[in-house]
């Protein structure tokens, strides 16, 4: 079966050239080490972590949005109680990071990081602002389409995933080598859908982004 993942060496994205391993990977048998993974529980997460718009005692600038979806495995089963971490630029396209030199304003009320756990049916939901597009140095006049970074553990080491969620109909898709690194058949899996049912009237727009984690996992009985 054709993998939905980008090849590590994708020269249009220049940083891959010196960082992609050149030797073929060695096939790893799935032992208990790979078939298990961290069970983090609620420990690292507070309810407020699912709202990115209220840092520093005030409200973030920008278009308020709800992002929600369901996390499933390759067989379509929900992945409950798994940690989902997100980070993103603010509405002006600026990250709160010492290396981000983009000439756009920081927002004292937007740190750009959120965490939540999926519920018993694998659903998650958080509130944020739509991130701005931002320039980067990959090629002349390079701009990243608006995106939110996602990190998920799933139920096993095999299922660990870091990805990016994009917004529908972004004109920058056509010029973005990171988006284009993904095989064409799978690109739309990274694009959230506008979701009127998740829109909160007079308050926030809604988007839906479902996530499918592939990779085998042991059942809890097998892990002891």
């Amino acid at each position, binding site marked *: *079966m*054709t*993998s*939905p*993942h*980008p090849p*590590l060496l*994708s020269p249009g*994205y220049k*940083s*891959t050239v*010196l*960082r*992609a*391993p*050149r*030797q073929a*990977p*060695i*096939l*790893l*048998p799935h*032992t*208990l*080490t790979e078939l*298990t993974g*961290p*069970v*983090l529980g609620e420990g*690292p997460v507070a309810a407020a972590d699912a709202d990115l718009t209220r840092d520093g005692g005030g409200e973030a600038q920008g278009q308020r949005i709800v992002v929600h979806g369901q996390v499933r495995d390759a067989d379509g089963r929900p992945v409950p109680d798994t940690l989902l*971490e997100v*980070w993103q630029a603010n509405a002006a396209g600026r*990250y*709160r*990071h010492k*290396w981000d030199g983009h000439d756009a304003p920081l927002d004292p009320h937007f*740190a*750009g*990081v959120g965490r939540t756990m999926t519920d018993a049916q694998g659903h998650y939901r958080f509130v944020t602002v739509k991130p701005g597009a931002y320039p980067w140095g990959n090629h002349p006049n390079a701009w990243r389409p608006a995106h939110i*970074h996602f990190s998920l553990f799933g139920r096993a*080491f*095999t299922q*660990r*995933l*870091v*990805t*990016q969620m994009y917004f529908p109909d972004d004109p920058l898709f056509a010029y973005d080598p*990171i988006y284009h*690194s*993904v095989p064409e058949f*799978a*690109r739309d*899996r*990274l694009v959230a859908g506008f979701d009127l049912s998740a829109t909160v009237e007079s308050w926030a727009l809604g988007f839906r982004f479902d*996530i*499918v984690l592939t*990779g085998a996992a042991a059942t*809890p009985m097998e*892990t*002891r």
Partner: protein
Amino acid sequence: MTAPGTPSQTVGPYLSIGLSWAEGPAVVAADTPGAVWLRGEIRDGDGAVVKDALVETWQADPDGRFHTPGFRGLGRCPTGDDGRYAIRTVKPGVVADQAPHLAVSVFARGLLHRVVTRVYFADEAAANAADPVLARVPGERRGTLIAEQSADGYRFDIILQGPDETVFFAL
């Protein structure tokens, strides 16, 4: 046939915003018997240090069990400006027929997908010699998976590309 699954994307240069935890590098508390530091640096195909990477480790407890109450098993450390990471943990026990090992994921700007490797331990030579995963690795490259003993634990460098490239695995 095309496979299911949400495609991977790079963590990008600002991963530390989302993925650094104050307690991430501490798999175990400092006063845990047998606590050691696993330290190393990440380098690219030019030998330059990689200062926007994240190392994650997953492991059994000292008895070779997973999901033991009170043992998180997960270590997580972004690299600093010097390309170095450090994780405080305990050496895991034997898991089935395998030598003590950690599963490792490396994420970085420029990596569109994580790369996966394993840490084995230099002071487990007999167990390493019988390990079924190490047996799959050509002898001349096996050393890239062996952490050397150091003053306060072990040293494990990760070379993403080049003649000394670390062995990476496909899951």
